[in-house]
């Protein structure tokens, strides 16, 4: 029965009025005592004053700025993903179009920061290790932007905890886990997306909590402003990194749970009209408003980037023609019959090629071929890539009529061998399901039908002219409805390992798009119009936006190539491995992204304690034992539970993702786990809470209030913990700041886990002979 007695020994503060019959003698008395805030321990009273709170948060913020700005000018070289994000900032300044998988907000801010500090954009951030000072890049100013956001994250965490009703010391505890975290610091000091992203995320959480606390003042001005505030920060989060979608999902789930509770007739007794009103308000503040903001970010993006640049080739021709100086815009010409052209496959960038060699009679697997002339894809310039467009109808004389148009039926003549491209119902050499492509002598009319191809310009309209460079098109064989297709697979030696071209049975296959690369000969008069620079075309914002969104999604999913520092999600909370950001061989300096071991492991322990408490409580309640008082329990479910939700939603989906994953993807979750750690610490050392924290409305039932009291234990434990955090931080600081250089043995000493792949480690002398 020892377990029972420990349960009894728990000090149960008030708020258990309904169960009066079972109450112990002392409990009512306890209630009265605790309702008076002056009855708390002196420490708690001292720390709970607004002035003390301000002092604490002031110290934390100052420290945060100090730690994040310390030697921010070192290294004066391009570090890790600054290669990308620095480059993007330069593109904004030059206003050249680029393409990236992440939404533009943070990158716009980088561009803004660069512009503000006078970066001219003439540095390309090509390689990790390129020097900034030599190239006169005002990089400190650009790095300051994420550093400011990263520093502000610390008071944001403090405020979240404070608003959630935890005492000052617990809030300081959570904030200092972020404050002294090497990973957060390393990430904030460089031009990377994560620091702003994490700041926006914590502001979203903060606004949501403020809004939630106003739930008894529904539809008041404050209520509306915090609702739209939540929407605003949510849009910022989402607009700065793709992962921001997870924050949106978190808030979405919390709102759904909230709405579900609101439906409960027994509990609230709301009418359905009232419910729909709430629903509408949330839809406006948390869906419509953020979407508008998100669109605005992209509007800025497109408005700034008006020149042709590195990202052109990702976009559709229509999009590209809106950019000033784009090659398509400049060089795209109408194609005429009898032009000699080269044709390139859009995806694999090979030319349509043919040569006199024929397909072998019999393939290795016993199938036979037509033994016709080979048609292949070839990556290099060659006269065998030249094809001439042959009309299938009689042509009038004036040159306008000789323009080839969408849905024309054409033949293609291979110039060197004077044979016509054709396909027929013979299996291709590598894919038995696809048709073989070959050619046929021009003079021989027996296979005339098989040489006819239907020209389908992708997204073409009736009678649209076929243009070089800009028209993506498919060649669909008239008799068999297959379209000319190629894919990255080499033919055997007999075709000189060139790429196979065959007929795809799905005539509208996306990967069957080709483009005319060059016009080599044309008898059309050169029109003067082409000589002058053309005006960029216009394309609606929403069409541009939709195209870019689709591309971003596709490319994000396509990031599957392995990376030496990519790691699996299961390793993250335990800090199994970090990322090497930068190294300098001469001075043996390096930046290695790794978290503060103590902070991270404490968070993991806290999470497991949380799940243990909640699980045990559920089981006990099932057996009609109520070990945790209701207020405390509600705090565990609703407040800490929300933090756990944030943690889980920002972490678990990564297990399902096939793409490249890095440990910095865990940082948002780590932030949430720091807040869980605070909540758990509060529960473990005192089990008292500030209650109620929601602001009572007119019709709210009055509830007996109570106050958290950690006594002297709180400051002592937190102090010791922060000290340990600080020591660990100092120990790992050379890896975070990239200075000073370390000799081999020191590196070995800093390698706390054998899985950390630090550079410049001294050779471990093997005892074995």
């Amino acid at each position: 029965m020892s377990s029972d007695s420990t349960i009894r020994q728990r000090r149960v503060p008030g708020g258990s009025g309904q169960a009066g019959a079972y109450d112990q003698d002392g409990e009512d008395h306890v209630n009265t005592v605790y309702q008076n805030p002056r009855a708390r321990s002196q420490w708690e009273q001292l720390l709970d004053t607004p002035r003390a709170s301000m002092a604490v948060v002031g110290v934390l913020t100052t420290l945060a700025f100090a730690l994040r700005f310390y030697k921010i000018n070192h290294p004066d070289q391009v570090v890790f993903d600054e290669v990308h994000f620095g480059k993007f900032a330069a593109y904004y300044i030059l206003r050249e179009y680029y393409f990236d998988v992440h939404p533009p907000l943070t990158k716009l801010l980088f561009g803004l920061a660069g512009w503000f500090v006078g970066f001219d954009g003439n540095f390309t951030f090509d390689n990790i290790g390129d020097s900034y000072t030599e190239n006169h890049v005002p990089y400190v100013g650009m790095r300051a932007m994420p550093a400011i956001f990263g520093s502000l994250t610390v008071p944001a965490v403090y405020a979240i905890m404070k608003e959630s009703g935890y005492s000052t010391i617990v809030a300081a505890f959570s904030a200092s886990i972020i404050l002294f975290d090497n990973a957060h610091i390393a990430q904030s000091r460089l031009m990377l997306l994560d620091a702003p992203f994490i700041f926006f995320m914590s502001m979203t959480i903060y606004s949501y909590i403020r809004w939630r606390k106003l739930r008894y003042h529904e539809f008041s001005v404050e209520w509306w402003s915090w609702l739209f505030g939540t929407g605003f920060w949510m849009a910022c989060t989402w607009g700065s990194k793709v992962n921001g979608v997870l924050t949106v999902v978190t808030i979405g789930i919390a709102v759904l749970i909230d709405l579900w509770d609101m439906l409960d007739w027994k509990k609230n007794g709301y009418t359905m009209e009232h419910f729909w009103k709430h629903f509408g308000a949330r839809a406006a503040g948390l869906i419509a408003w953020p979407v508008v903001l998100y669109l605005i970010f992209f509007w800025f993006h497109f408005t700034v980037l008006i020149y042709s640049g590195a990202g052109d080739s990702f976009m559709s021709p229509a999009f590209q023609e809106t950019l000033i100086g784009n090659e398509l815009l400049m060089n795209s010409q109408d194609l005429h019959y009898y032009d000699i052209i080269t044709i390139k496959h859009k995806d694999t960038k090979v030319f349509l090629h043919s040569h006199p060699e024929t397909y072998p009679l019999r393939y290795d697997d016993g199938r036979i071929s037509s033994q016709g002339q080979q048609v292949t894809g070839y990556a290099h310039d060659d006269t065998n890539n030249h094809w001439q467009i042959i009309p299938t109808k009689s042509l009038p004389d004036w040159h306008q009529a000789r323009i080839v148009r969408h849905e024309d039926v054409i033949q293609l003549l291979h110039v060197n061998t004077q044979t016509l491209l054709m396909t027929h119902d013979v299996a291709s050499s590598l894919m038995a399901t696809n048709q073989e492509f070959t050619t046929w002598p021009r003079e021989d009319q027996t296979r005339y039908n098989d040489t006819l191809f239907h020209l389908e310009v992708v997204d073409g309209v009736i009678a649209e002219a076929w243009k070089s460079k800009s028209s993506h098109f498919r060649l669909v064989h008239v008799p068999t409805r297959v379209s000319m297709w190629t894919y990255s697979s080499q033919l055997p030696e007999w075709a000189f390992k060139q790429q196979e071209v065959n007929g795809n049975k799905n005539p509208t296959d996306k990967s069957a798009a080709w483009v005319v690369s060059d016009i080599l000969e044309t008898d059309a008069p050169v029109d003067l119009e082409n000589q002058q620079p053309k005006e960029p075309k216009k394309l609606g914002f929403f069409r541009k936006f939709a195209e870019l969104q689709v591309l971003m999604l596709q490319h994000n999913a396509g990031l599957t190539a392995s990376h030496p520092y990519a790691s699996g999600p299961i390793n993250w909370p335990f800090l199994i491995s970090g990322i090497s950001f930068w190294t300098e061989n001469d001075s043996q300096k390096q930046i290695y992204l790794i978290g503060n071991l103590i902070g991270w492991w404490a968070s993991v322990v806290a999470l497991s304690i949380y799940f243990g408490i909640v699980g045990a409580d559920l089981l006990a309640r099932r057996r009609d034992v109520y070990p945790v008082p209701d207020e405390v329990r509600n705090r565990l479910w609703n407040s800490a539970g929300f933090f756990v939700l944030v943690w889980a939603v920002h972490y678990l989906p990564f297990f399902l993702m096939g793409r490249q994953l890095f440990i910095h993807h865990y940082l948002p979750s780590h932030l949430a786990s720091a807040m869980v750690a605070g909540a758990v610490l509060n529960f473990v050392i005192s089990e008292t809470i500030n209650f109620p924290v929601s602001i009572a409305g007119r019709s709210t039932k009055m509830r007996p209030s109570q106050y958290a009291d950690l006594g002297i234990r709180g400051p002592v434990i937190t102090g010791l913990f922060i000290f340990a955090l600080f020591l660990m931080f100092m120990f790992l600081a050379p890896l975070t700041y990239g200075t000073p250089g370390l000799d081999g043995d020191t590196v070995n000493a800093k390698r706390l886990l054998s899985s950390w792949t630090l550079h410049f480690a001294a050779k471990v002398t093997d005892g074995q002979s």
Partner: protein
Amino acid sequence: MSGNVRARRPASPPPGYGYPAPHKYPPASHGYSDADERREAAARGMGPTRAKAAAANLPGGLNITPGEWKLLVVILLVACSVRLFRLSKPDSVVFDEVHFGKFAGWYIKTRYFVDVHPPLAKMLITLAGWIFGFNGDFDFKEIAKPFENVPYVAMRLVPAMLGVATVPISYLTLRALDCRATTSLLAALFITFENGLVTQSRYILLDSPLVFFTALTALCFVVFSNEDRREPFSDRWWVWLAFTGLSLGAVVSCKWVGLFTIATVGVCTVLQLWFLLGDLRVTPRMWMRHFAARAICLIGIPIVFYMFMFSIHFAILANPGDGDSFMSSEFRSTLGRGMRDTYADVALGSEITLKHANTDGGYLHSHPHNYPIGSEQQQVTLYPHQDFNNVWRVLNATVDDDPQYDWANDPLEYIRDGARIKLRHIATDKALHSHEVRPPVSDVDFQNEVSGYGMAGWSGDLNDDWVVDIDHGSRGDRESGERVKALKTYFRLRHLMTGCVLFSHKVKLPEWGFEQQEVTCNKQAAKPNTLWYIETVAKHPQLHDDAEMVNYEKPGFIAKFWELQKVMWKTNAGLTARHAYDSRPATWPRLRRGINFWVKDGRQVYLIGNPFIWYMSTLSVLGYVAARGFLILRAKRGYRDFDNSKAMKYDAVLGFLFLGWAMHYLPFFLMGRQLFLHHYFPALYFAVLLTCGVFDLCTATFRPRVRLQIAAVLALVAIVVFARYSALAYGSEWTRGKCEAAKLGKGWDFDCSTFPHAYDQYKTAGATPHDSAAQATVGGEYGGRAPVAVNEPVAGAGGDAANQAGQGQANQAGAESSAAPALGAPEPGRDIFEEHPQKAMASKSVAADEAAAREREREKEDEEREKEREVSVVVQTPVVTVVSKAEEKVVVDEKKKETPVGFEGDEKTEEEEEKESEETTTGTDKEPEAETEAEVEVEKTYKKPAGPLGHEEQIADQIAQELYPEALDDE
């Protein structure tokens, strides 16, 4: 005890959990128990209302009337007649019988194989085959291959009978779920007449056993739950619980998909325990008993059963076979007689085979073929099979001028750590050699080529010297850490001159290296890939007869079991290649597309469901979800729908069936691997039962007669639809018109052109409606090649439709009909374990090989010529050479098809092969000789080996030419 603890009503329920109020409205039939009775009942571990219920004969277990047994017999007869109808047709291999038939053959021949599925169903099929005298000789090579001497009907009977047995089980399950007899009868008929289930159960496939055991598990568990409600811990309770466990073991021993069934039962059991936990009258001790009983029977029994199946599997497959190469050396040593014991001591002069420790590439191997690039010396590779070409002799490298160190008579000298040795390849008399030349595939700076180099009678140069670095020895044998001992010592071989270490990795050489694994000398190697050990040591003349012998430590059952599980898992996850008929889970409930199983002689077997039953089941599932969701919302708004005992009952029944459907369906969405329509069948089974549950609910208020009439109409429609598609299930006669009319969607791609226009066309036996010609001409057109007659390889079926189509086109006849999608050809499901053709390169005599080498050189020249052609864009090339080149290629191809030599390295077969290959080469080699003679001369000049000791090598060449003039003559 709980008196010490404050027990209160909570202020608000915890999110997500309602409070238990299950006993508020006991069904009227349960009667009422007073407090004493309830306490007494609780002491026995029962719910509050059960005492009365037990007394009132609450239906527990199978509760059916004697009349229904007669009905069951009738159902069984109907099911037999539907499922077994003309089971012997088609009398050729259908779909995945290609695999499972073959596996049966291997079981009977006791040759080890690996498959992604656990063994139970395969062993059942094998058992049937074995009883009826299958000797395992038939190879089930391709779809539509006619059976010869195979008791295939008996083998098909196993899945077919299990399919038949599923029918009464569905009846009993619904009865046990307290549905009416009419409903259960309807379910039985639906299961009987579901075309997909019928098709799948008629052939040697694993899904019918899987569905049977899934159904059996559901039945056992439902009956067990009934017993549990009546009286826990009774004898019958234990029996049904144990049966559930056994049946679970059987499901998962058929296919790993059975894990979903385990999950279904698991979720239900956790729910049961959760309710028991909330029942305060059940003491913790009693609860622990409930928990332990379920844990033992539902976790312990299945695991034991599953492992038992594998122990039988291992016991049967005692001999080496195709699956060897997937297993570790230790595992392989348990197959057949295993490896013979080998001598442990390795000394100068020992003949050894070296094995790479980290990859399963096999033995250090060399053969008389040269690298086509780099130094162009003899290839050194890793080769997985035992072979005389793997044998090397250890020689002393410290004695310079003594080529033949007299190991036979000098005192025995062990190979110790740091020893400097040479390795001599015995078959070709070349030394293991490395030099500063980049290897052929891993062409990077830190890798050096490893080759075989030298001459008989020439001791070689310094580049042949290797230093032995012992990494670790066996724990049990301290000596093995100090000197090299077979199987026990893991060591590196460091090249003396360049300091790199002998290395191999999972990179295959191209065709000229027979796709064997590349061996290099690496300066920056990852350690595991540089470790080698000695597998066999021939008897050293100096050793006594009683010298120490060693062998692999044979792994125990658990180790073998675990290793195989890992291999299966890895391969299963790797099954991602596309198949012409695979499909994604989202398309299954809509029955978008079937699978082509077999096509031959104007008949076709095509897996497609009964659209009526199929769509009904999907609609029921959707209807259930919608209704349940609506009820949840209503409950939230304070409506008391569930205070009705009828609602409670149907909620439990339909909830269970829906859970079964969801658990057997939704997890597939997480799987990236190749999936097929038949993966939906276990879920379909639950969906059909759910349909009947919905029927029971909808007709609950009708009079029995009306209910029966409705059921009869439904069953009749199902049977009519079944009949409409039955030709595809049975592979029987059909007409093109009916076939076209039966297509419901674009995705239903059974090929109607296989069927004749009218039934009487079948009477002209064997005539196919195809235009496929036995012989076709290709070429013979304008300006080019002479017509070539091509004998079509009798494709029958399984052969390429594309091929046929191609011929059709060449004929210019019926071009339109043959333009039908080439996807029409049936192909077997998955083939993963056969996709690693271990291209074996058996040892051959030097003479034969030189011929081959010359052949290859000539080829290379041709290639070069071709390359030139590619660069210069010349239009005209003589067609003649192209043709002759093609012929040459055929010859080479034939030569490359060597079979692996048996495990024991039987030398007789090798000799035979030598003769054969010699014959073939002498036969074919002569003709192109004249043409290439001049070029061979050129060859010789630039073929000079590129070793750093070029001068010495030239001298060696001269000596060799003097000593072996006949070698030159050959050229």
